[in-house]
């Protein structure tokens, strides 16, 4: 158990709780600026086509229309690396690709005007499969991406960005192996993280050098950090709205931010671009497709001697930062699979479907979901219990790994095998695990099976954060930190840290809006970095402010600063609380004290998530029910138990566990259209079908900051899909290697169809 704190570790009310339950929280579509126009997008009906002719004159003349943009007159902002994603282009690369943009006084005018744009297309052949896309003669998507394979590298994360795993000598490793197995597994259902709120941005130019963006983002500052260079280094102020779910997909928000900014520039008025749910499905951030062919060398005792393979990654028609997802995925593979000899070669490929984007799991879920089933083949061959295999092979103090920057990092965190063991005990693994391909129980046509998956990320200390803590003489404090709220409760958690250090009620700490103008630098609330990175900066700022307060109080109290304590806005010499003076007696009423904090990147720690899954498969119908999930982790110190519980329950949602069962984007490979682009045909789990769910959370202190905690939220879904696939395979005694494991695939595996 963690230490006893006044606020940390206790369930406290979210700072924004009242706003959320009363409906007063302002999401992006609740914000209206004076004179604001509505922006709409004309979308391509074809998966691959060239605009031969486009005429916008009727649309321009339509009442209420203030701007019409096509590739001919749009600002030359080109995103992606290499630069391949202009705001608008003359070539369409997926069904739903943007043809033209319209801004008008009303949504209705804008929509009517879209219908008046005359477009003549030349249809081009399209390609949807990664291997087909890389064959000679395949349709080519981008001039700058010859052969449809992206060049490696992504300089913003370092000159040596990790783009492969190469170490040791795989030939030697295979010679040392007792068993060598080989196989292919795809995780290619390209699901949509599908936050309930569609993506949206409002842009307004104060003047040609000053752009203000209101954004539905989990990381408002990333809009500025990533896109200021794209927009020619104008002064970009970004203000985050309450965000109605993101799961990674609403971070830097290049699309629709550039649409709104371009329209606002042309119309000289504020413009809102807020996608419909159809656009959300058809033209916004899917999960990457992943297919891996790998050969595994393993010893009888579970030592992995060699791992060699090719990892194909499908980013659809464009890449936001898939190279970084590959880098992180490669780093994460080494955390879960300790092996001295690696040769894993990723290949990032473009195809004619809605582009992938950042999604919770960020390359790692995609790689794990396709790699761990291949590891399962090896474990089965060696007759190893996966619990013992993962306990043995998860990174331990003294080990290390190449992280996303391509540099070697020595791991200095805790041993997660304790969390694995504890999770297994709660799940009842010892009794339920009957061996590979063996059901836990048989009841008529119903077969119960169990499986487990493991995943971790060393992003807990990635990238920089800064914070200011301003102490007011009235015993209150204001935290300046550019933290957005998309559901993680992080704005409240960092306030708790300030309240703990200043020893004041949580109600006396406020946090500034996520506004890049009033806050110091923040990278963004990506991955699981908030607790350690933002937390460290906030803690340092609060300590710094308290130190300044004690320096002023010391002479007033006739004591040394180091002998002072504070509680509820009063300062006293340790042990003499009866002689306490209020803060304003030390600092005066016409002063504030500001402490500063900064965090620098540290990749030497990681988190870990273990999912145990129990399924029931009906071998007559092929239907699978997820009966029970146990999610186990070690987070060092719980900041808020209810917020953490929600993050772990989230493993079911946001294109997580259920991508193994029924969830995915169904792409018609004849027309390039998505067939299930609505919330009835796109399957999601309802309240009625909830499995039993238990969280097992250990608190082994981490060498992070004062509260010894690390974040874990981002990774909770990632070990789920492979765990479910393992459980199904054990239940039916046949290996299933295809996501989602729908009834037809199960009946096929059973030889029934």
């Amino acid at each position: 158990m963690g230490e006893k704190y006044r606020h940390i570790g206790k369930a406290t009310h979210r700072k924004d709780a009242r706003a959320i339950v009363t409906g007063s929280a302002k999401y992006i579509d609740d914000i209206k600026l004076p004179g604001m126009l509505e922006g709409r997008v004309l979308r391509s009906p074809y998966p691959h086509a060239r605009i031969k002719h486009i005429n916008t004159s009727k649309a321009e003349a339509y009442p209420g229309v203030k701007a019409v943009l096509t590739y001919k007159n749009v600002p030359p902002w080109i995103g992606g690396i290499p630069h391949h994603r202009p705001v608008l282009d003359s070539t369409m690369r997926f069904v739903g690709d943007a043809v033209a943009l319209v801004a008008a006084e009303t949504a209705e005018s804008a929509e009517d005007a879209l219908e008046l744009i005359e477009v003549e297309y030349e249809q081009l052949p399209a390609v949807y499969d990664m291997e087909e896309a890389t064959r000679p003669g395949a349709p080519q998507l981008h001039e700058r991406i010859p052969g449809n394979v992206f060049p490696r590298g992504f300089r913003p994360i370092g000159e040596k960005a990790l783009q492969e795993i190469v170490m040791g000598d795989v030939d030697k490793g295979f010679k040392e192996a007792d068993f060598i197995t080989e196989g292919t597994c795809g995780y290619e259902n390209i699901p949509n993280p599908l936050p309930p709120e569609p993506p949206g941005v409002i842009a307004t130019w104060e003047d040609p050098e000053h752009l203000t963006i209101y954004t539905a983002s989990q990381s408002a500052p990333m809009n500025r950090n990533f896109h200021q260079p794209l927009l020619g280094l104008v002064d970009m102020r970004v203000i985050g709205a309450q965000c109605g779910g993101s799961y990674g997909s609403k971070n830097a928000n290049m699309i629709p931010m550039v649409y709104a900014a371009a329209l606002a520039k042309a119309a000289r008025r504020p413009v809102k671009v807020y996608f419909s749910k159809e656009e959300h499905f058809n033209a916004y951030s899917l999960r990457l497709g992943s297919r891996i062919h790998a050969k595994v060398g393993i010893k009888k005792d579970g030592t992995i001697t060699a791992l060699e393979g090719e990892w194909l990654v499908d980013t659809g028609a464009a890449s936001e930062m898939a190279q970084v997802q590959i880098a992180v995925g490669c780093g994460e593979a080494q955390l879960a699979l300790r092996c001295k000899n690696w040769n894993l070669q990723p290949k990032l490929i473009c195809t004619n479907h809605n582009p992938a984007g950042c999604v919770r799991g960020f390359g790692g879920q995609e790689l794990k979901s396709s790699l761990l089933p291949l590891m399962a083949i090896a474990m089965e061959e060696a007759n190893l219990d996966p619990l013992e295999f993962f306990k043995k092979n998860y990174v331990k103090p003294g080990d290390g790994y190449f992280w996303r920057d391509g540099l070697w990092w020595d791991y200095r965190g805790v041993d997660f095998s304790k969390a694995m063991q504890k999770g297994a005990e709660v799940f009842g693994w010892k009794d339920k695990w009957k061996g590979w391909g063996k059901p836990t129980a048989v009841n008529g046509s119903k077969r119960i099976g169990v499986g487990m998956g493991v995943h971790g990320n060393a992003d807990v200390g990635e990238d920089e954060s800064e914070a200011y803590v301003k102490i007011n003489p009235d015993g209150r404090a204001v935290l300046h930190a550019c933290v957005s709220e998309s559901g993680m409760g992080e704005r409240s958690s960092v306030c708790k840290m300030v309240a703990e250090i200043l020893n004041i009620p949580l109600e006396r700490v406020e946090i500034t809006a996520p506004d890049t103008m009033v806050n110091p630098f923040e990278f963004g609330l990506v991955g699981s970095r908030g607790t350690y990175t933002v937390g460290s900066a906030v803690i340092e700022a609060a300590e710094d402010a308290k130190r300044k307060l004690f320096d002023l109080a010391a002479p007033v109290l006739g004591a040394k600063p180091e002998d002072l304590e504070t509680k509820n806005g009063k300062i006293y010499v340790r042990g003499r609380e009866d002689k306490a003076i209020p803060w304003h007696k030390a600092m005066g009423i016409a002063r504030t004290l500001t402490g500063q904090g900064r965090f620098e990147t540290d990749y030497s720690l990681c988190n870990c998530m273990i999912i145990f899954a129990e399924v029931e498969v009906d071998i007559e119908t092929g239907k699978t029910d997820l009966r029970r999930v146990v999610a186990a982790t070690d987070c060092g110190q719980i900041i808020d138990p209810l917020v953490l519980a929600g993050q772990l329950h989230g493993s079911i949602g946001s294109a997580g566990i259920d991508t193994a069962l029924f969830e995915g984007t169904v792409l018609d490979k004849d027309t390039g259209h998505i067939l299930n682009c609505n919330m009835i045909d796109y399957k999601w789990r309802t309240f009625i079908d909830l499995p039993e769910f238990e969280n097992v959370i250990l608190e082994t202190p981490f060498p992070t900051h004062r509260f010894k905690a690390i974040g874990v939220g981002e990774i909770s879904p990632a070990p789920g899909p492979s765990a479910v696939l393992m459980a199904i395979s054990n239940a039916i005694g046949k290996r299933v290697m295809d996501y989602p494991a729908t009834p037809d695939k199960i009946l096929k595996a059973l030889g029934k169809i």
Partner: protein
Amino acid sequence: MKKVNRDEGRKRKGISQSAATMNRTAEKNINLTVNGKRYQLMVGKDVTPDHTLAYTLRETLGYTGVKIGCDHGSCGSCTVLMDGEAVLSCTILTVECDGKDITTIEGLENRESGELHPLQQAFINYSAFQCGFCTPGIILSAKALLDKNPSPTEEEIKRELAGHYCRCISHYLVIKAIQSVAEKGG
């Protein structure tokens, strides 16, 4: 709101744009009570035949606590109470709502005392939300349930909420929050 959606909505609900419908609605005002406040909406001016109730509540009357997620009646975010029943306000046309009594999430707290409805307080106590976008709809469905059935079983709660899409997965804490109110007898 996309025009396509409105057209599809009409098809789905079997509503034709016949002249008869247009004339009938054009002749009258729509009287709505929202959270105890009475509104008279002039057809053709404040409301047109293709305005959904969700649109009217949000855009015309400013009740932005009503959230539109899918605008197709399949995510539950836009749920409001109509004469005490939980309904999907994106699938109902405002012109069909004459004389109706609507409650949105803004109508639950006691405006004079500022006291929250027990369900709102329970959702705060249990942190029964993450992003919060689906929360207004879920709270209103829970209220409709408890008003009819003050001590529902867990299964009854789940069934009532089955149409609500919560992608963060706050379901487990939502159920606890509702049970904590139910145990007190609503």
